[in-house]
C-alpha cells in the first residue's frame, strides 16, 4: 500500500510539473488529467475511496472537459502555442520559483518541528456512509451554502457568458483611441 502511495505521489508531481511547463493547452490538460488520476490513487491509499471516485468524476471529468470545451470554442491555433512560448521565457521562472521554494521550505520546516500526535491505531479507512452521515448531519448548513454557491455560479456563468450586443466597457471606450494611436506608431 505504501509503495502505491509513493508511486502515485511521484506520478502526480511529475505530471503537475509537465502541466506547468507545457505550451500547448491541450497537452497541459492531458497531463492535468494524469495528475488528478494520480491524486485519486493517493486518495485510495489514504482510505478515501469515495473521494477518489469524486476526484476522477468531477475534477478529471467534468472540470477538465469544461476547460477543453472552452478551448475549443476559442479555436486556438499554432500561433497561440508560439505566443505561449514567447511569454514563458526562462528568466521569468526565477522569481516565482524562489518565492515558492521559500514558502515550501517554511512549510517543511513547520512540518519537521511539529509534534504530530500518533495516529489512532484503528484503520484510517473512512467509508462513504460515514461521510454521508456527517455531511447531512452536522454539516448540513454547509451543504446548503454550497448549493447556494453553485446556484450563484450558474447564474453568474450564464450572465457573464451571454453574448450581449457589443457593450464596450467605459474603460475600454477610453482606451480604444489610445490603442489605435499606438498601433499607428
Amino acid at each position, binding site marked *: 500500500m505504501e509503495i502505491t502511495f509513493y508511486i502515485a505521489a511521484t506520478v502526480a508531481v511529475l505530471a503537475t510539473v509537465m502541466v506547468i511547463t507545457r505550451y500547448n493547452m491541450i497537452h497541459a490538460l492531458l497531463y492535468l488529467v494524469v495528475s488528478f488520476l494520480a491524486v485519486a490513487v493517493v486518495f485510495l491509499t489514504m482510505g478515501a475511496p469515495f473521494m477518489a471516485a469524486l*476526484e476522477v468524476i468531477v475534477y478529471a471529468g467534468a472540470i477538465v472537459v469544461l476547460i477543453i470545451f472552452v478551448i475549443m470554442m476559442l479555436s486556438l491555433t499554432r500561433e497561440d502555442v508560439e505566443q505561449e512560448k514567447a511569454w514563458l521565457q526562462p528568466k521569468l521562472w526565477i522569481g516565482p520559483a524562489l518565492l515558492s521554494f521559500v514558502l515550501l521550505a517554511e512549510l517543511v520546516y513547520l512540518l519537521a518541528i511539529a509534534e*504530530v500526535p500518533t495516529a489512532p491505531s484503528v484503520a484510517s479507512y473512512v467509508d462513504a456512509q460515514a461521510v454521508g452521515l456527517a455531511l447531512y448531519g452536522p454539516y448540513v448548513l454547509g451543504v446548503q451554502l454550497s448549493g447556494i454557491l453553485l446556484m450563484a455560479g450558474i447564474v453568474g456563468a450564464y*450572465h457573464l457568458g451571454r453574448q450581449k450586443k457589443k457593450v464596450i466597457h467605459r474603460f475600454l471606450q477610453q482606451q480604444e483611441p489610445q490603442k489605435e494611436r499606438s498601433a499607428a506608431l
Partner: protein
Amino acid sequence: MTAIPIETGLLLAGVLFMLGLISVMIRRNVIFMLISVEIMLNAAGLAFIVAGSHWAQPDGQIMFIFILTMAAAEVSVGLALILQIYHQLKTLNSDAANFMKG
C-alpha cells in the same frame, strides 16, 4: 493497511500547491492560470484528505467535497469570464486586462 506518515502526505500536498503557485505567477494566459488554480485547489483538498485519514474522521473528506463544489463553481464562472475577456480584448493575455491600475 499501513498508515502513511501524515508528513509525507502533507509534503505532497505542499509540493503540488507550490507547483500550482509558480504556474499562476508566471503564466499570462488566463486559461493556464485557471488550470494552475485548479492544481492549487486540488492540493488543498489533498491536505484535508490526508489529515482526515490521519484522524480517521469524515470531516476531512467533507471539506474536500466543499472544495470540490467551490472549484466547480469557480471554474464555471472563471470560464465565463475568460470568454468575455476574449470577446472584449481578442486576447487571452491577462496583462491586457489592467484597466484597474491605480
